[in-house]
């Protein structure tokens, strides 16, 4: 058994876009308050807690809807997934697994960050991990700003794919920082 693609994260019954589901215009720089409002409004009508006493058919429909709404919400909340979703709406595949070409300076920077992480873990230095986390937070914010420009203003979806992959790199590094905290505790 081997994996063919990373389709994980795709909604089960979704035919329309995640944005449409919440009555929002597709954009990377999102009105998070409006998203949350729409999410809660829909959940309050379809959630299984509303149908705990209903028949099988309604409970099943409620489960499907809630699953779909949760999936759409978590996709739009996550910047990497939100960007990938917008790109896919425009026929652009971010190709996380197949396209690993990255600008040389970005890769150098990543190697340096990873070395810092390894050293901090080795020395069980929580303060160094804190510092690294702050640095990643800054890098992420800067990258998300550029993504917003490229997607929402320039509408350069192909060009945005490179930035999405860079952002994905930072997210992976963040997960490794989390694992490092757990290791040194």
């Amino acid at each position, binding site marked *: 058994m081997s*994996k063919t693609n990373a*389709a994980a994260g795709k909604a089960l019954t979704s035919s329309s876009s995640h944005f449409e589901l919440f009555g929002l215009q597709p954009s990377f720089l999102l009105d998070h308050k409006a998203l949350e409002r729409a999410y809660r409004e829909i959940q309050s009508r379809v*959630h299984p807690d509303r149908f705990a006493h*209903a028949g099988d058919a309604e409970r099943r429909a409620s*489960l499907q809807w809630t699953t779909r709404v*949760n999936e759409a919400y978590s996709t739009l909340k996550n910047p990497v997934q939100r960007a990938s979703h917008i790109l896919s709406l425009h026929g652009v595949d971010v190709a996380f697994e197949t396209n690993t070409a990255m600008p040389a300076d970005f890769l150098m920077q990543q190697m340096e960050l990873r070395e810092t992480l390894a050293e901090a873990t080795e020395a069980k230095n929580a303060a160094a991990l804190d510092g690294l986390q702050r640095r990643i937070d800054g890098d992420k914010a800067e990258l998300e700003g550029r993504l917003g420009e490229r997607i929402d203003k320039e509408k350069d979806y192909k060009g945005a794919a490179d930035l999405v992959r860079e952002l994905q790199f930072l997210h992976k590094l963040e997960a490794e920082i989390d694992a490092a905290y757990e290791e040194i505790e």
Partner: protein
Amino acid sequence: MALLQISEPGMSPAPHERRLAVGIDLGTTNSLVATVRSGIATVLPDAQGRPLLPSIVRYHANGKVDVGYSAQARQADDPKNTIVSVKRFMGRGVKDVDHAQNAPYDFVDAPGMLQLRTVAGVKSPVEVSAEILKVLNERAQLALGGPLSGAVITVPAYFDDAQRQATKDAGRLAGLNVLRLLNEPTAAAIAYGLDNASEGIFAVYDLGGGTFDLSILRLSKGVFEVVATAGDSMLGGDDFDQRLFCWIGEAAKLAPLAPRDMRQLLVKAREAKEYLSVHQEASVTAKLTSGELVDVSLDSETFCRITQTLVQKTLGPVRRALRDAGLSVNEIDGVVMVGGATRMPQIQRAVAEFFKRDPLNNLDPDKVVALGAAMQANVLAGNKPQGEDWLLLDVIPLSLGVETMGGLVEKIIPRNTTIPAGRGQEFTTFKDGQTGMSFHVVQGERELVSDCRSLARFELKGIPPMAAGAARVRVTYQVDADGLLSVTAKESTTGAEASVTVKPSYGLADADIERMLRDSFSHAKEDVHARALAEAMVDGQRLLEATRSALAADAALLSPEDRKAIDAAIAALETAMAGADHRRIKQALDALNRATGPFAERRMDEGVRRALAGKKIGNL
């Protein structure tokens, strides 16, 4: 014939009769049942006015079963047949149980879940738990004056799929309609949040008899949203007793103990622990079977010292939950303490120090979970009008994955995903002409399959022979609102569809549950058929009521043909219910469920449409 009542247009019909619903805290040490009466959640006491039911079950050779205080009183006399802290064994094998050597039981290692050999036969932890639930069910029926419409049973947030499924099975075995499994810290947050009209981000620190949970919730205008949860399902007040028990053994230089002495000293250790919560020093005296006298004393400082590692152990999950939530300690608006074990001063101090604020203790830590569960049961039963109820968004505590090449885990649904959740992943064949594929479903955070909990193994057969890598098998994980998983695998490249759906069962198949039900009835001299008929009638009544209220609200969404089909199915169910054949009722029930399928979907779509329309108006 009674005249039909028609309500004023725009007015809702007369409120239906309130449904009797309860919340049950099935605890490691004590269990409780609570309900909402006249808008207020209250714990229902036993005939002697005692709110708690010790979670202790004693089996007699004649099949009689004692539950609660009477079993507790005799636990040292009959340790092998008196099961305490059975919650620790739910969904667990013998090798998963800490201190198994210190437990005075006769374990039977069965596939999926251990069993206990008693004088009344071999018992599964599910059966033992069902005995506790039966007593609470009877207590509630007596207090409320009728059969229950449904119950919410609480589970530790950190319970995995096996432990949750076992708990739901126990509820079913006790004859309860389980409306929902609710996470204990979430239940506490409901009780606390509604009581104090709180808004903001709260941490719930729940240290019970055998489990530890830490949940972080965002409370805002009618929404309880769990942001992250972490814990340890093998850490609780019991472990503090165990430390104290070992300390007593060393201090008194005792030889290895007989089961009876073991149990006696464990009880003494627990008493000393509770005493030390309010006193500086406690003494432990006991007379062993050999006649030897144990007489030692310890001060609270010593108790703190020998339990310090346990206290520290709770802080690991606290840090992990904060990290998963992306929050720092300063962003927490309050810390709610839940569970009897949080009465220990060293716990209170450690939590206050970590969060840099005094924890909140204004609700009884023993009762708050049952009270919150009762409030949720009241909502789920439909006793609260829309607008006065609330929305609860919970998460799964542990990642769900599948085994891939080399014994590695591919995560399909990561921990702290909001439930209900569904995710899919595609797999393909490894060899030319391969027609079957086997899957191994696991739960846990580690990368190696051997470090995770195995939930199920299943096989997809009938894949048409193709070149290696050409088949497309989609594996879908679906987690429902109880946090329970079902898995579907489907091959659809060629259109000749092969598909299989599994629910992890942990050695308890539906047939086992039926056998246990039969066994329990043969003791109670109750007729199985009468019971099945009564249950079918309740189910039928419930579905008729639900269908009628759906028709009353949204009949406009139906075509005349659909309406005719539904009306016919309703009539068929009514006819079946006039008879006494539970199988016929079941068939008519299924038929009505099928007939209302498209209607239910249309109603749900309509609900979403209205939600969005309402939002836009609200934005103007």
